[in-house]
């Protein structure tokens, strides 16, 4: 059972402001989706190792400076004195 409170909480964790209507709709839909994912319970997996990335170690490339040509902040709308403006922290 996926409750409206759970959806509200997950919405908050995901930083998504949800309307009352969305909360009700998602509670119903996500319950159905999770119900389907529960199919994973019907297969015996205790002996199985989960799949891993083929590369066992992280490969780091040489730390060479490659200057970026162009303006990386081209699409940020609120800028001041070469900085990006964001919302206040508290």
């Amino acid at each position: 059972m996926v409750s409206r409170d759970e959806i509200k909480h997950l919405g908050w964790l995901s930083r998504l402001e949800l309307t009352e209507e969305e909360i009700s709709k998602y509670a119903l839909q996500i319950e159905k989706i999770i119900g389907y994912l529960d199919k994973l319970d019907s297969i015996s997996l205790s002996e199985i190792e989960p799949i891993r990335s083929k590369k066992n170690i992280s490969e780091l490339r040489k730390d060479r400076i490659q200057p970026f040509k162009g303006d990386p902040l081209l699409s940020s709308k609120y800028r001041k004195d070469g900085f990006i403006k964001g919302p206040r922290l508290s």
Partner: protein
Amino acid sequence: MNQEFSAEEYISQILERIEKVDDKINAFIIVDSNGALEKARLIDKKVRNGEHAKDVGSLAGVAIGIKDNICTKGLRTTCASKMLQDYVPPYDATVIKKLKDDGAIVVGKLNLDEFAMGSTTEFSMYGSTRNPWNTSYVPGGSSGGSGASVAASECAISLGSDTGGSVRCPASFCSVVGLKPTYGRVSRFGLISYANSLEQIGPIGKTVSDVVMVMNSISGMDNNDQTTVDGETPKYSLQSNGNIRVGLLKEMVEGADPEISKCVYSAMDLFSNLGCRCEETSMKSIEYALASYYTIAMAESSSNLARYDNIRYGFDLSPDNYECNAYFAKVRSNFGQEVKRRIITGSYVLSSGYYGKYYLKAQKVRAILKQEIVSLLKTFDVLIGPTMPVLPFKFGEKIDDPLKMYMIDIDTVVANLTGIPSISIPAGFSKNLPIGLQIMAGEFQEQILFNAALLFESSANVQRSPDL
């Protein structure tokens, strides 16, 4: 390319075609007419100056459309989302750089389900793309614009991205050829991430040889994508021989529309007649593939989409007077319905107490699928089945029932979960709607895949160009 038919004339014709048919199809989000014509003139100039074919590039003048989740320098890249409606990338994705170096001309950006989440292109802020074979029907997704534009001859080739079937589904629904390469064959640098352990960029074309041509341009190791594999980049060739061992996956045909199953069995007969050794075979773990896929895809999407805070790129909403969490929650509510649904479900399966129940199990199922496919591919060179278990359907038919929509990905997700390459090629029609044949091969065995696809294509001769 010769001087009797200039790149400029060809690109002008392409642009006229887009002008004429795209009102009906809605494949393009942006058409870069000026940029494309300018590039065409540059190629013509090089040819006039007597440059050799190899200097103008193997794809000189070829019109290519790009799914709008792949970054193009200076050309808006929106993911069909309000969250990126004004995003102009300051760099080209590696695949774009490679295609441009080979002379290909980007004519525009193609429609998709928002952030590539969907199977019909109905979840786009720019409206649905329509199927060129019947505009009341969906073109498939999420690379619907990429499939429809090639079918409608609005570009010669296109790029899509395939996370759970997003290149192969529209290729099947639009009667064109679409490839999901082996994971690690093509750089994802500049592809806007949705589920990064599953997705690959892949080409769509009218023929197998078009797809091979693009793969010869975009494949290879990239320092900017740690998951691309080292070693020499293969040059794929066009060869077809009948000496292929073909396994038909029983579970896939059993679950499909009877007309589609019939078509896949006919494909197997054709392979037999062409000298291949064909056999029906079984892959039991397929039953669990979809649950594993959606668990992993949604978990990864919830973390990949966490970066959209509207500060570095986004739409116009001043952050002044907002506390940060309130601001983020407010702007992020502008994601579309399907994206929000996947982020929340992803957060659910990753939340404490559920990780072992869902995500870990999904990764274990993935390991079982991989074992089973590796073992099958010891007996067979290629595995075949339907690309899609259903025919293209009408708009709105599945949009209100997410689970019903997810179910149609059942046959395509196997290749993403196991990393193997898979191609969809036109196999026939039922009720005037296209059917695609899916062919899968072992990791990095694209050449075998192309051999089988070419063999089938040269004998099957299925229609590729709808009347529009």
